[in-house]
């Protein structure tokens, strides 16, 4: 594959080689393939000192170039292009817009370039515009090519190189930055292939390597260094169930400014977690909110510490005070200005971040060793332990240091539980922000949910019996239910309806009771009581699981690309007790079942016992998920494991009349 581009110029061979192609080996079912995409960023102008230490007065000149092969009708929408850009009529604008469509015309390439009248510009607001255009004559097999350049003030962030996304496979992705030599930056990539270094583009292209880098010096108005990366043959990422953070598994590279050279001196900024810790710890809208004298908190701390003489009781009391006493309002970006502690206290409301900063401030004010805990929640890119990509931080909790370790608290939501962070906080690396700062890993294996279901069938006669079902939800199951129910009371009704609907049709529930719904520090228990109706007969057929752990295999697809991640460890226990009347006994009982995956990672057992003396039949089922991450190679075993569990849940037993 050599017919590619460099410096955003497309080799006509790229079009010629691809115009008649109908499928691509990278994904034979793809509806479109990106033949080429390139983003080049060039920083011009200067870095100036001033303001809050320094500011960057650079203009960013970004050129974007894409070539896409349309393979199926469902991808034809790709031919409608919208580009949003900053347009202030002065420093920010779009230019050099070009678009061409290529079609196969009996073996030759028919090329059509869009004219000025084909482009539409709509002013969205004073500084924002939208460029729109649509390729004419697009059909299956067409190749569309477009490019443009955008100029805007450099906002301190480089655009991320989103190598992989969930749309189409890419054959070639090119990313380049040209930066003045007195500006320092670092690149962090989660591309799971080692980058190979090359002298120049030609050498990189000639290599069989799929991830290449080369750099060179540019000499224009200012000395610059240009770094370029090439990634070849990138499949589209695909959302699959049981992935905690898809961005962690998608290829991406991020660049971050780490320093500058001024008057011959190198000044590093935010190039280590220590520096970011210091910055946040001393920041007036972050660390200082916690460490200030906060005399306005005197009254609250006095009242709580007096009422709770021990430190553990005080921690709990401060937590409860903030959790339930302050309204939670929608979150802001961590780097935006937060309300002062006084304002939060006065208004009795705050964002998740503000509520947890208030909790830290109260604890510190009461001489308890507490500090903000910064992290990135699931669904987002994890923090990087080795390098502070600080724009990934999107959440703040609270860490309290005790003799036995840290107590982690999140007082944001009234449904949250003392001493336990919500599962979304367990997305890898996190940092405690205090005078020294320290990192910790928050992993799904650190937390566990234990659910227990017990079913008791008693008072059995020829026509029916009594049934009692008790569902004891674990910490995370309770938290999830409580949040959903608090959000909309209809959710509670729907949940309970759903539980009732899955019962066998001969069970009638007459009473439903929910315990601990409003106590966030206790697990939710739901009790159903009712009757089972039997037709008079000599045999009765009973489901071994009237409430099923799952009715459909969550791993339904035959193949899977991504590793399987569970949000926490799980334990599920299901006990059925059936007290039989005299003259009725179970037919032959199934044999006990034990299945496991990865030795002890996942275990399922099911046992049947009939105690003749007390005429009691027990069926005990237990499912333990002890590991939270499974490699893709284990997928088929895991799928079979769940398949067997569901099969076991569908087992029936027969009760037979042994005497009248």
């Amino acid at each position, binding site marked *: 594959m050599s017919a590619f581009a460099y410096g955003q110029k497309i080799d006509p061979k790229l079009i010629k080689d691809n115009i008649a192609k109908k499928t691509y080996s990278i*994904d*034979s*079912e*793809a*509806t479109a393939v990106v033949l080429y995409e390139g983003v080049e960023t060039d920083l011009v102008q200067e870095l100036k000192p001033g303001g809050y230490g320094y500011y960057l007065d650079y203009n960013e000149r970004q050129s974007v170039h894409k070539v896409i092969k349309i393979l*199926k*009708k*469902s991808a*034809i929408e790709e*031919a*409608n292009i*919208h580009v949003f850009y900053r347009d202030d009529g002065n420093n920010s604008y779009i230019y050099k817009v070009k678009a061409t469509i290529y079609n196969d015309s009996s073996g030759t390439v028919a090329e059509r370039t869009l004219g000025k009248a*084909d482009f*539409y510009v*709509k002013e*969205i*607001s*004073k500084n924002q515009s*939208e460029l*729109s*255009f*649509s390729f*004419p*004559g*697009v*059909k299956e097999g067409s190749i569309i090519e477009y490019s443009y350049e955008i100029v805007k003030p450099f906002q301190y962030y480089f655009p991320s190189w989103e190598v992989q996304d969930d749309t189409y496979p890419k054959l070639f992705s090119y990313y380049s930055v040209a930066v003045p030599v007195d500006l320092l930056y670092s690149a962090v990539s989660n591309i799971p292939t080692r980058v190979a270094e090359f002298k120049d583009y030609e050498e990189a292209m000639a290599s069989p390597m799929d991830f290449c880098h080369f750099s060179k010096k540019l000499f224009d108005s200012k000395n610059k260094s240009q770094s370029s990366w090439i990634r070849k043959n990138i499949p589209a990422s*695909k959302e699959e169930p049981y992935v905690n953070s898809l961005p962690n598994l998608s290829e991406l590279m991020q660049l971050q400014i780490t320093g500058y050279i001024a008057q011959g001196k190198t000044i590093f900024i935010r190039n280590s977690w220590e520096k970011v810790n210091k910055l946040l710890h001393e920041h007036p809208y972050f660390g200082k909110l916690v460490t200030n004298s906060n005399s306005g908190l005197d009254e609250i701390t006095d009242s709580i510490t007096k009422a709770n003489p021990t430190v553990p009781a005080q921690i709990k009391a401060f937590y409860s005070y903030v959790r339930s006493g302050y*309204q939670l*309002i*929608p979150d802001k970006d961590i780097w935006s200005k937060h309300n002062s502690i006084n304002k939060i206290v006065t*208004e009795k*409301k705050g964002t998740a971040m503000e509520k947890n900063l208030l909790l830290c401030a109260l604890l510190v004010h009461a001489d308890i060793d507490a500090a903000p805990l910064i992290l990135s929640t699931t669904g987002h890119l994890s923090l990087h332990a080795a390098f502070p990509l600080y724009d990934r931080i999107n959440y703040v909790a609270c860490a309290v240091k005790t003799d036995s370790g840290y107590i982690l608290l999140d007082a944001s939501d009234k449904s949250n539980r003392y001493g336990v962070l919500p599962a979304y906080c367990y997305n890898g690396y996190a940092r405690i922000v205090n005078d020294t700062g320290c990192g910790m890993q928050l992993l799904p294996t650190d937390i566990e949910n234990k659910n227990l279901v017990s079913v008791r069938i008693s008072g059995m006669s020829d026509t029916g019996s009594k049934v009692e079902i008790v569902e004891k939800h674990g910490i995370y199951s309770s938290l999830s239910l409580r949040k959903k129910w608090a959000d909309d009371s*209809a959710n509670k009704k*729907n949940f309970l*309806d759903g539980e009732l*609907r899955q019962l*066998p*049709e001969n069970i009638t529930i007459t009473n439903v009771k929910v315990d601990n719904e409003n106590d966030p520090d206790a697990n939710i228990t739901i009790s159903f009581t009712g009757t089972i109706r039997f037709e008079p007969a000599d*045999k009765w*057929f009973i489901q071994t699981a009237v409430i099923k752990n799952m*009715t*459909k*295999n969550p791993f*339904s*697809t*035959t*193949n899977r690309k991504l590793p399987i991640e569970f949000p926490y460890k799980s334990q599920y226990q299901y006990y059925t007790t059936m007290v039989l009347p005299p003259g009725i006994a179970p*037919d*032959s009982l*199934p044999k006990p079942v034990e299945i496991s995956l990865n030795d002890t990672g996942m275990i399922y057992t099911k046992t049947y016992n009939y105690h003749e003396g007390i005429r009691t039949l027990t069926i005990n089922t237990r499912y333990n998920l002890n590991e939270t991450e499974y490699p893709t190679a284990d997928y088929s075993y895991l799928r079979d494991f*769940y*398949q067997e569990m*569901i*099969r076991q849940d*569908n*087992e*029936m*037993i*027969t009760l037979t009349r042994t005497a009248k």
Partner: protein
Amino acid sequence: MKPLITYVFAMLISLAAASADEPHLAAGAIAPELLKNAHAVIRSSHEEIRIVSPHEVYIKRKYAVTILDQKGAGFGKIREFFDNFREIESIQGQLFDKNGEFVKKLKKRDIRESIPMTYNLIDDDHCKLFEFDYNDYPYTCVYEIESKQNMSFAFPPWYPQPDHGCSVDSATFTIVYPKGFALRHREFHMDSKPELSHTDDNAVLSYRVDRIPAKKIPDEFESAQYENLPRVLVVADSFELQDMRGSMASWKDFGAFIYRLNERRDTLPATIKKVVHQMTDSCKTSKQKIALLYKYLQGSTRYVSIQLGIGGWQTLTADFVGEKGYGDCKALSNYMQAMLKEAGITAYTVLAHAGLKTEQPMLNDFPCNRFNHMILCVPEQADTIWLECTSQTNPAGYLSSFTDNRYVLMLTPQGGFPVKTPAYTIDDNLLTGNADLYVNDNDEMNGAIGLKYSGLYWDMERGIADEAKSKTDDYLNRKLRLANYSVVKYSINNDVSGRIPAISESISVTATGNVSHSGKHLFISSQVLPQIVAQPSNIDSGRKSFHIHREKSVIDTVTFHFSKPYVAESIKDNHLDFPFASYSRKILLKNDSTLQVITTYRQKEGSYPGEKFNDYVKMTRLIQNDENAKIVLARKE
């Protein structure tokens, strides 16, 4: 077709208003009956449309809305739309806390300008957005918005109740128009009658509503969202749009205006004319010509929406579409009409309200513009052929659920004529399923499943024929009700050759979990094929009426083959008859080792009184119970 988004979105906040003089905005003063189901309460509102001339119309809205909780926050936002026909002259606002105490004023610099989310590639729609950054519920926003429009083609409908979840204490609506200006109005879900008064030069039409409680959000069994709310439509018999004058006094007149607006835009490029003749000159029937040209249209054009100025109602030329290969519904219909004309066939463009049939039905006795789509009608001697020119997959003559079975306006040189599009019958909308499954001694199954989706079922499934395999995998692994299964082989055939299109799927599967045994007994769940009818997501009774929007039928046959002989232990046929549908399940054990379960379901379209909804829920539950019931066989000794 350019929808009147200005007005549709304005309905959301089509309010009227409270002036600062309103004495008491404290949330505690709201009548308790207005709090039920409510997330916001319109405390008072006044909307006025002042028609100075057909090209000078002023709209003023003043309203006070109390936001009760976070879910009601949307009612406190301003989204004011403007385009070439309408400008926003001023927006003012004030915020009051729960006690009715003044908090702050809207600052002009906090009003954002944006563009609405639309499917258009390009349009001239813009909007002004504002919301108070405040969330100490409850709080009250008082707004006053003035706008001006330079046409009388359409006026914003009055929605005193902006949406479900919002109650209204009081609201008024006034239309001031010159004496002699012919204005029509139609009220929906309004108990109060309008009052007409006069000044020296003007007529004044006034409405007032009080104490409207909040409504629950409608579900799939109710009419479209805004159709349930009180509203007033106002229409000018004579109007101006840009520099054109027209009449909406009758459907004939309105059709004539739209026809005139779009005539002489049908010149095809010479190359296309040549293609038309090459394709059709040798055809023996016009039906053949229509089918060939429609296929050519589908293969050479695509839907791209461009709505600029009057272009919202006036088509792009046939020349443009021929040159670019794209256009919106008007442009593609006009282009197809031009190609048919070139082939000697007369066709008429037709205005329709596409989407849910009950959303904005055409009112035969009240001409007004409620259209958002254009299709093509080709009257033929034997049968009329309807063409959906934006579809690249429909067979010629098939309209789909997008525009079927409703009144539409056919545009002819003689004016507009209401006509009805074809309805698809219970037998057209048919899903047939066949499963032939072999069960081994380990309760594992393998076999073949065939599904055929016809008519409106095809509408729902057709997308899959063009999807990437990864999406097909997901789809396949969700669609069957087998507890555990793997798809071994899959093929799909999309048959668009007939009047009613059909998709046939063949699926080879291996499966477990549907059969289990204990001792000599075999337990079988016949839940294999897709669910026939779902239980309603909202089972609340208390609705005034409910609608079943489509008629359809299902015939499923599931056959299990066993390697050993069995006798029936617990087998029960079932038959249910309800006004909405009938259901039956027959279970047959044939030759000791073949079990066949035949299920049929026939659903009728219709509107039913609310008190019957419990019966509908009961029916769906009985069907589910029946399907859930295990079939028990005993090994033959």
